[in-house]
């Protein structure tokens, strides 16, 4: 599943790096603890979080994450957008809370890592 397909199917709003939505999403990870994401997410994951500060971009770029979805209608800070634009990491927003969004992602075939 490509990022832009998720955007279309889930009605996500793209806040930055619109030209980088052709990335393949290979799985998903949901967490608000940055160290947890660094430790347990996989390259190519879509990351679901409510953190909006610019350090999420750093974490995403360290792990080569495909994109970030912010939940509960939270908007990225302006410096977050700036940094994400520079790092070419798409940030999308949704009104849905994490549980709803992850459920929908799962239904679309985006699954987590099976351990």
């Amino acid at each position, binding site marked *: 599943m490509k990022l832009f397909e998720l955007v279309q199917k889930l009605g996500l709003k793209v806040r930055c790096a619109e*030209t980088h939505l052709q990335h393949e999403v290979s799985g998903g990870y949901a967490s608000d*603890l*940055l160290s947890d994401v660094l430790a347990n997410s996989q390259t190519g994951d879509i990351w679901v979080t409510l953190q909006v500060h610019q350090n999420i971009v*750093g974490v995403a770029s*360290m792990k080569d994450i495909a994109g970030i979805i912010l939940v509960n209608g939270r908007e990225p800070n302006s410096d977050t957008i700036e940094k994400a634009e520079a790092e070419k990491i798409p940030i999308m927003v949704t009104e849905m809370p994490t549980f709803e969004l992850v459920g929908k992602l799962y239904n679309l075939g985006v699954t987590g890592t099976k351990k």
Partner: protein
Amino acid sequence: MISDNRISKVQELVYEIRVGDVMQSDVITVAPETPMSQLRGILKKERISGIPVVNGDRLAGIISIEDFIKWLADREEDCSIAEKMSKNVHTLYADEPLTHAVNMFQLLGFGRFAVIDRQDKRLLGIITKGDIVRGLLKKLEIDHVEGEDIYRHKVSRFFDNILADQVVLLFQYDVAGHDFKHAGEGASRLKTTLRRLGLAPQIVRRVAIATYEAEMNLIIYTDGGKIRVRVGPDEILVIVRDSGPGIADVEKALQPGYSTAPEWVRELGFGAGMGLCNIKKCANKMDLMSSVGKGTQLYIRISTNDGAEREAV
């Protein structure tokens, strides 16, 4: 010079890229017998200004918002779209170079062209000026990414020219304490540098994650410090030094989930007590030395030979 090069690059691309590469193939169409009165709903719902009218899979015409407005203004009775659509439609073939599309837009001033198959004349998609711009940007972007490979090539050639029994590189990153704004920049610059050196992506990622966590520790807990990275033939050694406050109980600090981070730092998603564990996970060997009031030194060793197996852990 640079801007001249870019112009010629775009000029080159409009000949190289085909109409079919940038068109939207997921097209909304209407049947010729659809009543005009339904058009408003379709245009509004899909937020588009023109729709191909399709009979079977053949293009019969195009109906646009202008046609609709004209129909409204003339206060005519409801009729089929077939009666009001433009029938003499200019089309483009999917295998034509983009430059033909650019010329057609310039020449005719239309907002969109239907794209059809050269052989069977089937409707394949629709192309707007926006699609052309997007297509070009995407292509330029891909070329930009390929530019990183050129860096890599240059760096490896540089190494070929060094005559020595052993080559060791040293990078230093200075980290200011409590500066969340620039947090992770050292690790990020290191990551780019190691990639350019042509190291395996798994190794680069492990070094970057370990360095990122160490950098965050400097920012959260200290007044700043230095990260030195020594890249040798078999091993990357990351040395992180600060001059205080030091860790009171090193053993506890190494336990997963143990943290002394203040609440506001935790709210940012940091200070979960996993940083040092993460570093350990990425490293082949990690040594932590600390004395309260004096400072902390962290040695992270990552072998450049066994990357692939370890990341799976």
